[in-house]
């Protein structure tokens, strides 16, 4: 591979039709290289979350092209996109979205079980390793509703890591956390980029958080301004 672009967008435009036709994203082109820790900032309504959802392949209603690992993903079927999300993208959301029916360990293992690359014993081992690095191994057998917000977010991060994704995407991962837990989550992200060369793309409006990342993409009115 001649370049090490993990994610590339070419001429992305997106419209909302309800209540009136409105262009949210205007011809956005950008790329993220391997090992970068990138944050997208901007005012509420500037389209930063929308951009993230397009890049994450969950939203397929757009004009333009998206490449993940130099592979065109625009126009792929729901099933293929699901596989790409499963294998190559890890998610951390503002709300933790753990499955209340499963315990912490199972929650972390679930995307791995879906991928089916490892046996259940291997997955359990890997999940425990991730939980250990996030200092959560004691909580492995608890149910999600027994955890605090910060703990839940760490479980979500462990879940995002289970399939060794190319890139981890975060949508306001610290938005719902207090200062102490925000710092904790940031430190984890930082450690991941430094130690494991993990690529990260995080949407945030927390400027403190953004300033500490490698690269800041600022958006305004549907365009990247810096």
């Amino acid at each position, binding site marked *: 591979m001649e370049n090490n672009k993990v994610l590339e967008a070419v001429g992305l435009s997106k419209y909302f039709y309800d209540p009136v036709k409105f262009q949210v994203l205007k011809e956005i082109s950008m790329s993220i290289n391997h090992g970068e820790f990138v944050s997208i900032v901007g005012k509420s309504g500037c389209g930063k979350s929308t951009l993230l959802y397009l890049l*994450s392949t969950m939203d397929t209603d757009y004009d333009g092209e998206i490449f993940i690992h130099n592979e065109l993903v625009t126009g792929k079927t729901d099933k293929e996109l699901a596989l790409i999300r499963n294998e190559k993208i890890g998610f951390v959301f503002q709300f933790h979205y753990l*499955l209340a029916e499963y315990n912490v360990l199972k929650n972390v293992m679930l995307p791995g079980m879906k991928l089916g690359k490892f046996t259940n014993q291997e997955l359990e081992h890997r999940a425990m390793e991730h939980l250990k690095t996030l200092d959560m191994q004691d909580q492995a057998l608890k149910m999600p509703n027994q955890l605090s917000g910060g703990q839940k977010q760490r479980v979500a991060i462990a879940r995002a890591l289970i399939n060794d994704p190319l890139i981890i995407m975060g949508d306001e991962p610290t938005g719902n956390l207090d200062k102490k837990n925000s710092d904790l989550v940031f430190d984890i992200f930082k450690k991941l980029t430094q130690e494991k060369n993990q690529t990260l793309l995080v949407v945030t409006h927390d400027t403190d958080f953004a300033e500490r990342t490698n690269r800041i993409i600022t958006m305004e009115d549907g365009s990247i301004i810096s």
Partner: protein
Amino acid sequence: MNFKLILNIALHLLQARLKQTVVAAVGVTFGIAMFISLVSFMNGLNDLLDGLMLNRTPHVLLYNEIKPSANQPILLSESYKDNANFIRSVKPKDIGKSIYNSKSIISYLKKDPRILDVAPKISTPVFFNSGTIEISGLINGIDIRAEEKLFKFSDYIIEGNIADLSQNNSIIIGKGLADKMLLIKGDIIKITSSKGNLASLKIVGISQIGIAEIDNTMSYTSLTTAQKILGEPTNYITDIQIKLYDMTTAPAVAKEFHNKFNLDTIDYRTANSQFETGSTIRNIISYAVGVVLLIVAGFGIYNILNMMIYEKMDSIAILKATGFSGNDVKWIFVSLAIIIGLAGGLFGLLFGYIFSSIIDIIPFETASLPTVKTYPINYNPLYYIIGITFALFTTTIAGLFPALKASKIDPVEIIRGK
């Protein structure tokens, strides 16, 4: 697709809403149990009523019908050959009720591989004399051995023994007839035949078939006694009764013998068409009720799965975000429905069997049916197969709509919507 994982997720979702799922499954159980017991009972009843008819009726009956000759003299006339001839006041021709050449026909029929057995019979109207009163009735001269083999005649003898009929001048009379004339076993009954012959016969038994009309008029005697009463030779026979191995071929066989022996034939189906109609309608009713019950249960499942989807929006969104496709999500909910349908259905079969068994031991004694002691039940495994198939079918359909809805949920909308 990883079905084990999908099933695992479905089971966990199910555990989270255990109470509602149990209620949904109980709906299916109730529907299936009712369906099974209803159909088993209805068909048991049908079998009983059909048996009442079939046990007495030959599959094919050969006889001579009283009818006008098909070839009237005018048809032989050359001069009127091409005309349309109208003939009035045609009288039936007397060809006698006796079956011509009966012995060789019977021996021919006995060799036919389709035929279980053949029973010759003489059927003739008589008057029973009781003091000054004459009561009209029928005498059946029967071949005791063949009659017993084909129609289990002894089941209907409530007093006396069928073997006693082989004595000369003995008779078994219907219960209604005996009650009317105040006769009991051992009495002598006087008979006048249609030709005016008088005979005195000893009553050796009382029969009861359960149909008043028959019990009031019918009596049985041996072939030789009947021939003697009528003053006919020993080859005199009016009916040949045939039972087949495969009763469904009766109409075809009847037609074949009609052409071969130049005799009138009637098959059991034509002779008893009202029974068929009754059975069909009872079947339709029981299936209709069962289907309605299951559809109601299906709506219950639909409701619960729909509710579950609204409750589990977040979970569905995160499953999709972490790599489960719409198809996977659909299968999660379809398998939920199938689990409910299968569990509910299997319990339904079990309870259906239990209910049927309970009905089966409830006493049902009626004077008209001497051999029946409890309510009849038909334990045909086919009903159980239909039951479980239908349970799975309705629950899958009921689950499919919510599942399709879940598969179309847009995770972005839910994640953003917060």
